[in-house]
C-alpha cells in the first residue's frame, strides 16, 4: 500500500491582490499547537509593509468609490467562497490552535457568519451612524460617515480566524482599505483567507495580509504618514502598544487600542464600525 505523496503549499504574502514573497527573502517556521512543523511562512519586512500601504491606498480609491451595495455584494461573495472552503479552514484552525474538531467547526462557522453580518452592514452604516440635523436656520444640514482611508491592523494572536475576521470585517465594510499583520504564530488561516479574497472580486489592495513580526513592522506603520488609522487588536505587549500610540500621535492617527480578553464570539455591536469612519457634515441653504 502506497500513500500518495501530497503537494505542499508555499505560503506567501498577499499584497495588491497578488502573492509575492517577502522582498527580504526571509521566512520563519510556523509550528502547530502540538509543536510540529507546519510551514515556512514569509517573514515580511518594513519594505513589504511600505509596499502594502501603497497597494492599500490604490485599493482604497476603488473600494471607497464603489457603491455600498456593490461592497456588500463583494463581501457576501467572500462569505460564499469561505463556505466552500469550510473544511480547509477547519483543518487550518485545528492545526493552528490545537482545537477539537467541534470547537474548530464552531469557530469557522462563527467566522463565516460574522463575515455575512458585516457584508450586510455596508448599505446600512450611513443610516445608523449618519443623520440629518435640525439646525436653527434655513439650512439643510446632514452628517454622513465616510471611510478614514488606510488602516494598519494587528490581528488577534490567539483567535486565528474568528478574531481576524472580526477585525477585518468592520474596517472594509465601512469602505476602508487595510494592511493587516496576521497572528505571528497562527498565520495559516489568514493565508487561506487571502486565497479566498483573491478569488472573490475584492479589488486588489483593499485587503493586504502580511505574515511576520509586528514588533518589526508596526513602528513603521504607526509612523507612516499615509496610514490613517491603527487597530492594535493583537498587540499583546503593553509597552509596544504604548510606543505605537506615541508614534501615531505625530500624524494624529486614529488609534483603536489593543483588545485584551476579547470574546470574539460575542455580538460585536457598533463600536468597531464607528472606529474607522469620519463624519462629514454638510450645510446648504434653503431659499428661492
Amino acid at each position: 500500500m502506497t500513500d500518495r505523496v501530497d503537494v505542499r503549499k508555499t505560503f506567501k504574502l498577499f499584497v495588491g491582490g497578488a502573492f509575492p514573497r517577502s522582498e527580504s527573502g526571509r521566512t520563519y517556521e510556523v509550528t502547530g499547537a502540538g509543536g510540529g512543523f507546519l510551514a515556512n511562512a514569509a517573514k515580511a519586512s518594513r519594505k513589504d509593509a511600505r509596499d502594502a500601504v501603497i497597494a492599500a491606498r490604490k485599493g482604497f480609491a476603488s473600494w471607497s468609490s464603489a457603491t455600498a451595495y456593490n461592497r456588500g455584494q463583494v463581501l457576501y461573495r467572500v462569505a460564499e467562497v469561505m463556505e466552500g472552503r469550510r473544511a480547509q479552514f477547519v483543518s487550518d484552525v485545528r492545526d493552528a490552535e490545537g482545537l477539537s474538531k467541534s470547537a474548530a467547526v464552531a469557530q469557522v462557522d462563527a467566522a463565516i457568519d460574522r463575515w455575512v453580518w458585516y457584508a450586510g452592514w455596508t448599505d446600512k452604516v450611513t443610516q445608523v451612524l449618519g443623520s440629518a440635523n435640525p439646525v436653527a436656520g434655513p439650512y439643510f444640514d446632514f452628517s454622513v460617515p465616510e471611510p478614514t482611508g488606510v488602516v494598519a491592523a494587528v490581528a488577534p494572536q490567539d483567535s486565528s480566524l474568528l478574531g481576524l475576521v472580526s477585525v477585518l470585517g468592520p474596517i472594509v465594510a465601512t469602505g476602508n482599505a487595510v494592511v493587516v499583520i496576521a497572528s505571528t504564530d497562527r498565520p495559516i488561516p489568514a493565508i487561506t483567507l487571502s486565497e479566498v479574497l483573491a478569488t472573490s472580486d475584492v479589488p486588489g489592495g483593499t485587503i493586504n495580509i502580511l505574515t511576520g513580526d509586528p514588533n518589526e513592522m508596526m513602528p513603521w506603520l504607526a509612523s507612516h504618514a499615509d496610514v490613517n488609522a491603527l487597530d492594535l487588536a493583537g498587540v499583546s505587549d503593553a509597552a509596544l502598544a504604548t510606543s505605537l500610540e506615541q508614534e501615531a500621535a505625530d500624524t494624529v492617527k486614529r488609534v483603536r487600542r489593543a483588545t485584551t480578553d476579547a470574546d470574539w464570539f460575542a455580538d460585536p455591536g457598533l463600536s468597531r464600525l464607528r472606529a474607522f469612519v469620519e463624519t462629514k457634515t454638510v450645510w446648504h441653504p434653503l431659499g428661492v
Partner: protein
Amino acid sequence: MAFEYAPAPESRSVVNIASSYGLFINGEFVDAKSGTMFKTINPATEEVLADISDAGAEDVDRAVAAARKAYTGAWGSMSGRDRSKYLFRIARLIQERSRELAVLETLDNGKPIRESRDVDIPLVAGHFFYHAGWADKLDYAGYGANPRSLGVAAQVIPWNFPLLMLAWKIAPALACGNTVVLKPAETTPLTALAFAEICQQADLPPGVVNILTGAGDTGRLLVEHPGVDKVAFTGSTEVGKAIQRAIAGTSKSLTLELGGKAANIVFDDAPLDEAVEGIVNGIFFNQGHVCCAGSRLLLQESIAEEAMEALKRRLGTLRLGDPLDKNTDIGAINSAEQLARIHALADSGDEEGAERWSPPCELPDTGFWFAPTVFTGVTQAHRIAREEIFGPVLSVLTFRTPEEAIEKANNTPYGLSAGVWTEKGSRILWMADRLRAGVVWGNTFNRFDPTSPFGGYKESGFGREGGRQGLGAYLKEQS
C-alpha cells in the same frame, strides 16, 4: 438616410410557462379548493399565457393557517442570523434567474424588456439583499432593543411592477420575522409564482411565504381574515380606503401605498435637456403605470414654449411596440379595462378644452396600446389635472413663481411624489421643504433604491417602504 433599427427581440426560450398553476401554500403548489380558474394573457398580443387558480375563502383559510403555523413554529423562533441567510439565498437565486424573470415579467405585464431587465429585476434582487442584512441587526434599526415582529402579514399588490412590489412587501416582512400570505394582481401572477419556486429552491421553511392568486374578492377575503395581524396594500386609493374601513376596530396594523398625481416642476434655469429626459421618464416610463408618475408637468411660464418644443421633439424618438424588443421604449397597456379608463380620462381632456398632442405613432393591431399623449392648456380644474390616469398621458400647466408652483403642486388630495428641476441647489431644498409629498426628486425622477424610504402623504397612503424607516411597518416597538 434613415437609421432604422431592425427588430431585436429577446428570446422567449429562457422561460418555461406551465399551462396551469395552483396556489402556493405551505411550501407546495396545491389545487384551489374553490375550483375556479382564470386566464392570464400577454397584453401585447392578447395571447393566453396560462390558467391561474382563483383562491376562495377556504384557500385563504389554509394559507393563513400555514403562515400562522410557520410563524409560531420554525420562523418565529429562528434567529435573525438564520433568517438573513434565507433572504440572501433568495436574493442570489433572483440574480441567477434574472433574465428568465425579466422575460416573464414583460410577457405577463406588457412592459418593455429593457425596463424589466434593467430596472425591475435588479431592484428586486437589491431589495432582498438589503433586507437580508437587516434581519440580524434589528437592534440597531432605531426601534429599541429586540423589536418584535407582528405575526402573519396579508399583502396585496398591484400589476404595474409585479415582482418588485412583491419584493417591497416580502423582503422587509421576512427580515423582521413575520410570515406572509401575498396576493399578486389578477393580470400579473406569473412572476409571483416563479418566486414561489425560488422559495422552494432556497429551502425556505414551508408556510413562511404563501402566494394566493385570484381576483378582487381573494384580496378582500385575505385582508379581512381574522387570522391576519398586519395588512399591507399597494393599489388604488379607492380600494385602499375600503381596506382601511374594513379593518377599522380590529387590532390589525395597516400600511397603504396608493395613487398619486405628482407635479414635475421645471424652473427657468433647469438643465433643459436633462429635464426633458426627466419629464419623459416621469410619465412614460412603464407606460405611465406608476403611482409616483410625474403626470402633471408644471412649467415656469417664461420657458414654457421652449420646453414644450424640446419635449415634443424628444417624444418623436420614442419607440412603441413589441415589449420583448430590446429597443422598445413604450410597451402595452396592462389590460383592456385599464386602456378603457385611460381613453375615458383622455377624452375628458378634449371635452374640457385642453389641447391634445401625440407624436406620430403606429399602434399594433392586437393587444392594448395607447400612444404617448400630452395635453397643454390644462388647468387645476380639469379632470386630467386631478384624477390619476395611470397611463402615458401628461397634463401640462404653468406657474409664475416658486410659491405658486408649491401651491399648485400641493393642491391635490394626493401626496406621493414630486420633481423639481433647477440648477439652484437652495431652491431644490426650499421646494423639497414645502412640497407635501413623500418623495421629492431633485433634477431626477423615478429613482428607487432599497435603502431609500418610499411612501406618500395624504390620500397617497401612509407608511414607508425601504430604508430603516420601512422596517417599522413590520415591527412592534417596545413601549
